[in-house]
Each structure stands twice: as C-alpha cells, then as structure tokens.
C-alpha cells in the first residue's frame, strides 16, 4: 500500500516551483457553500473581536485596546490552530512594533515563538525580564522554549520563580513538563498529580495543560490505561485545544486505533497536523481516501516550503517517512528538524527514519542525547534496541 501510494505521488515534493493544476469553476447555485468558517460571526469570541476591531479603528493609538485585540487574536489563532490570527495580532500592534513597550514585547516574543523563531523569542523574553524581573509570563514561556530546545537545566531554572509569582498548579506544570522528559518522569508525574488534586478550582486552561502533560507522560511510560483516563479527563474540560487533539491522535495511532483518529479529524482537516494524522489513520485502515489526503498534504507542504518557513519540518519528515515511504529523504528532514527542536516526537522521528533508511549511524546524535537526558519513553526504548541491534 505504502509503496503504491509513493508511486502515485511522483516527485511532488521535489519540485521547487509550484503550479496550479486544477481548473477553477463557476458554481451553478447561489446556495452552494464554498467555505465553512470554524467560528461564525455570532459566536461570542468572534463578536467580541469584531467589536474591538471596530473600536480600534476609531482610536488607532489606544494601546490597551490594541493589546486586548491582539491577545484576543492570539487566543483565537490557538483555538483554530490558524496562524493567520498571529499575523492579525502583529498588524494591530504595528505602531509599537519597532520600539515595543513591555506588553508589546511580550506579545512579539509569543508570536516569534509560534513562528519557531526561538532565539528571537528568547531575546525578547530576556528583555522583558530585564525590565520586569517578576513577569511570570516571560519566565513561563522562556521555560517552555528552553524545554523544546532540550536545555532542561535552564528550563527548570526558569520554572522556579513561578512558584512565587504564579499559581501552584502552573509552577508544578512547568516543572512537571520538564521532569517528564529529563529522566525523572515518575517524580514529575507525582508532582503534577498532587498539584492537580490540590487545585480543583484552578483555571480550566491551567488544568488542561497539566492534565495533557500527565497523559503524555503516562503514555511514554507505557501506562496505556492511565494515559487514556487522563486524555478523557482533559476532554471533559470542554476546551477546544489543538495540542490535546494531536497528542491524543498520536496516542491512538500508537495503540493502533485509527478509526478513532478518523472520527476525531474527519470534519476538520484545516490544521496540517490534523490532516497528517488523518492521512496516517486512513493509510492504516487501508482506505481509498488516503491518496486524496496525501495530495492535499503535499500541496500544503509545498506552499509552506516555498514561503521558506521552517515550522513544517516535523510534519514534512513524518509525511515523507510514513506516507511517501522515502526514508532517506525523511531522515534528512528529521535531522534538520532535530537541530531546531528536541521534543520526544522529534527524537522518535529521527530514530524511525534512520531505521527505515537502514542508516543507524545517522541516529547517533539522538541516541547520545537520549543517554544523556535519560528520557523515559517505551517507543524510543524499542527503537533504540532495534537500532543498536542493527549496528552490532
């Protein structure tokens, strides 16, 4: 199946230029629906954003109003997993963008973080902390970025001030997210569990984050049932969250439950990450839809590539490895991705690609890193075993 699919998509990703293949059409009926908006105009979030936007156009130099609107866009962008909103947020703050006061600096850092401009974001957060050493937001985001980059020691140090500046749950989630990947998963898990037990009335978003970390940690430790329970617990909070959905879909794919992934994403393939997981699920099921999703994904990756963004490397590597079945190429992408971010899924991609490409030597930097950090992950452990088996 995989090889067949690979034949059907010859070199779509190899070309550096794009071309529009399909012909445009003129619909026959006025009632034909062309596009569905995830959030219609009458949803409270959208109404509020529109109202603020209108107010701001009347008083374009009102910084408080601009910040409220910009953060509103950031939140909406997160809910819809649509990066357009980050652009809207930037445009709103344009008058302050070059010489930003602290609140704008924070937002600029967040947008840079979203764009995977980690160094730019860290610089901005450092600038904020120089002026406001007690800014919890800057400490927290800094910890998260350092964690993604694999600098766990600095990340933990950045979590420390949160216990004084913020809630107990948030401080624990910050530390727990790091401990769960640097060889102290059990400690991190207990810390998070305790914090959650003591924070029943905490903010729902804080709870969601903490529970998601718990679920991922449990999954990595091979505690499938606990992980499933945590995921369900997170869904009960009833907050739309793309990160949670992706994490759950990966868990389901690992558990070989592709039908559930299909149910999760069938009606929402806007985010590339959803489309990727849906395509992987369809491929697992052996459905004829696979090819269409694959083509869509190829088109999107090509457009993103053309823009010169580096945010797609993980998706592209996974797509190339599992859907196009081109391990050597996937390995190169996975290794490039590894230089940008070092989360467990990034490590896993390198190992899987190295194994498929029969190039265990290429996995060496990741294996060394795993030994150094002591990351506990049943899937990584298996891959490591197979790789070292190949090597010897």
């Amino acid at each position, binding site marked *: 199946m995989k090889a067949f699919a690979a034949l059907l998509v010859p070199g779509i990703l190899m070309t550096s230029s794009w071309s529009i293949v399909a012909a445009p059409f003129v619909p026959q009926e006025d009632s034909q629906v062309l596009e569905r908006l995830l959030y219609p105009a009458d949803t409270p979030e959208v109404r509020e954003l529109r109202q603020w936007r209108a107010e701001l156009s009347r008083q374009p130099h009102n910084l408080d109003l601009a910040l409220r609107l910009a953060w509103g866009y950031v939140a909406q962008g997160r809910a819809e997993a649509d990066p357009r909103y980050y*652009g809207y947020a930037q445009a709103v703050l344009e008058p302050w963008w070059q010489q930003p006061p602290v609140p704008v600096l924070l937002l600029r850092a967040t947008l840079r973080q979203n764009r995977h401009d980690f160094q730019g974001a860290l610089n901005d957060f450092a600038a904020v902390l120089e002026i406001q050493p007690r800014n919890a937001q800057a400490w*927290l985001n800094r910890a998260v*970025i350092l964690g993604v980059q694999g600098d766990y020691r600095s990340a933990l140090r950045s979590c420390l001030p949160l216990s004084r500046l913020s809630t107990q749950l948030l401080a624990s989630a910050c530390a727990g997210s790091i401990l769960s990947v640097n060889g102290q998963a059990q400690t991190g898990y207990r810390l998070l569990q305790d914090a959650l037990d003591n924070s029943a009335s905490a903010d729902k978003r804080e709870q969601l984050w903490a529970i998601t970390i718990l679920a991922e940690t449990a999954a990595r430790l091979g505690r499938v049932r606990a992980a499933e329970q945590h995921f369900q617990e997170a869904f009960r909070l009833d907050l739309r969250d793309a990160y949670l959905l992706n994490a759950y879909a990966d868990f389901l794919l690992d558990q070989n439950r592709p039908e559930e992934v299909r149910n999760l994403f069938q009606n929402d393939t806007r985010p590339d990450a959803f489309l990727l997981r849906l395509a992987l699920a369809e491929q697992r099921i052996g459905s004829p839809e696979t090819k269409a999703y694959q083509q869509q994904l190829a088109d999107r990756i090509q457009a993103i590539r053309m823009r010169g963004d580096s945010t797609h490397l993980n998706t592209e590597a996974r797509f190339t490895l599992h859907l196009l079945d081109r391990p050597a190429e996937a390995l190169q992408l996975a290794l490039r991705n590894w230089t940008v971010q070092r989360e467990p899924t990034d490590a896993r991609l390198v190992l899987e690609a190295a194994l498929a490409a029969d190039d265990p030597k290429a996995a060496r930097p990741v294996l060394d890193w795993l030994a150094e950090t002591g990351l506990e992950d049943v899937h990584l452990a298996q891959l490591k075993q197979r790789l070292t088996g190949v090597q010897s």
Partner: protein
Amino acid sequence: MKKLAFAFLLGMVLMVPVSGLAHKPSDSYLTLRFTQDNTLAVRWDVALRDLEYALGLDTNGDGEITWGELRIRHAAIGSYALAHLKIVNGGESCDPSSLRQAVENHSDGAYTVLTFELGCPYTHSPLTLDYRLFFDLDPSHRGLLRVDYPTGTQTAVLSPEQPQLILQPTAHSRWRQFLDYWREGGWHIWLGFDHLLFLITLLLPAVLRREDGHWRQVDGFRTVMTEVVGVVTAFTIAHSLTLSAAVLGWISLPSRWVESVIAATVLVAALNNLYPVVRTRLWVLAFSLGLIHGFGFASVLVDLGLPSSAVALALGGFNLGVETGQLAVVIALLPLAYVLRNSWFYRRALLQMGSAGIAVIAVTWLLERSLEVPLLPF
C-alpha cells in the same frame, strides 16, 4: 492591564511550539504569463478566509460562505485586489482588463480566482511588480508568484519586507530582443510626430532647386535620390551619435530643454523653406539639427528600460528601427513629390503653405514646451 495579561498567560503557554501544530498560513497564488506582445495574462487565487477578514463575505453571519454571498462581492473583491497589485513599466502602470472571477478549492480551503489581462506599455523591458495584498492586515501573508516566460519560469515570494520584484523578460532571445527594439524605434518615428515633421520639412524642397529666387524642378530621379539619401543619412548619423551618448550617460541634458530645441529645429527647417538660407547642402542642416533629436530619442529608450546585458543590441536595434521608419516615410512620399514637383499644388500649397503651417505648429510646440511652467503669478 495586569489582570488582562494574566488572563492570557495560560493561553500562551499552550501555544507551545508544538511540532506541526499550525495550519497553512495565508498565501495567495499569483501567476503571470507573457502572452502576446505587451499583454500579461494574470491568474490570482486569493483565499476566501482572507477576504472574509478584509472585506467580510459571510453577509448573513451563518458561518458559511456561499457562492451567492461571494458573487455579490465580486466588484468589491476585484477593486480591493487590484488596488494592492501594481505592475509598472517605463513609468506607466499596466492596465487591467477583462476581469473575471471563479472558484478553486486548494488544499486548505476555497479561493476566489481572479483572471485578467494586463496591458503594459512595453513588455520586452523590465516590469516592476509591487504586491501589497493583506500586508496591512496580516504581515505574515505571502504572495507566491510564478511568472511564465516564453522560455522559462521564475518564482518568488512576496512579503512586506520584499513587496517588489523586477520581472526581467530575459527569456526573450537576443534576436527577439533586437527585433523588439527595432520595432520600437520604427514605431517611435510615427508616434514622435516632431521628428517626422522635421524630416518631411527638410525633404519637401529636395525635388526642387533654388535659382534666382525661384524654385525650379530638379531633373532626374537619381539626383533627387542622392540628395534625399544624403539628408536622411546625415540625420540618422547625427541622432545616433547623440542617442548613444545620452543612453550611455556621457551627456545628459534636461528634457524640457531638449524638447523645446527640437521644436525650434522644426521651426528653423520650415523657415528655411520659406526664406531659403541653406540651399545646397541640406545634409549639413539635417546633421546639425539632427544632433538634438538624438537626445529626444534617448528619453524614449530610457523609458523603455535597457537590458543591462544587451545595451549595444538595444541601441543598434532602436537606431535601425528609427532609420527604417524614416525610409518608409521617404519611400512613400518621394515618388509622389517627384511627380508633383512641377505643379502649382506642390510649390504653393505643399511647399509654401505647408511649411508655413509647420512653422506655426513648431512655434506652438516651442511655446508649450518651453513655458511648461505658467508665467502668471498664481
């Protein structure tokens, strides 16, 4: 403010840079194709999601954009889009025409597809493309450009940092380029009425000779031809010299001055027909006055834009084109003048009254061009 920042604190943490979390960002697909001369076929795919934010398409607010809702906004979309895309060539904008809209489903949703033609002054010279769509609303928007030349394809990404692109239709072969400049040169003789009038004025008396204050006919077509070829060649050599000097930047004269003096040369030529001063060696007149016409041609050629890789080629082509245009005029008019040279019509109506008329036109030009700035103090 503090409360607000805190409320969003969590929102941000969860926007952790998780791999592949994002959706495809906002892009538009712009395709330009060089078709026939001076026309570009344009196809521009713009996402309905972006237009919804910029213009509002979902009129009834039900979260669905229907064809009906899109269709009634076509005019607004067209003018919005075109206001944010400029293609300029030789200081003039290319004019869009026959705009149509259809729909296309891309991998990340529905797009409206604008197709139109752009009529440009010249397409064999560099075009400047300036793209500003949505940059004011979403600085992360990108225009993905593809240009199809007859012999190749160019792609580029347009961003707020780089909204402009020079399109170099270098894909044209050198021979084709030469031909293009040749044609522009010939064409310019017809459009640049002042050069043509100057030449005609000089040639009007070529079929006659002055004797004792009277015009007499010249005997023999051969003699006439020698005279005419001499005049045309002298004119060509003169303006080629100054044209090259100006285009290569060796001499630069203010264009208002040049245009005024060109008008003056037409006046001098016309007056010389009415009150002959230079009688025998007309080519000397053609040469000396032709020098200034070269500067006039130069401004045209500079507007056309010179391909840096082929200056000589362009200059040669343009000069030869001017020459060809002149010869065409001569070939068309000379036999007629030769046949009519003895008639009252030719001597009175064409030579005398015609020259007088040309003198009037030349004076008008001279005034217009030299007094470009109003003299009155308000």
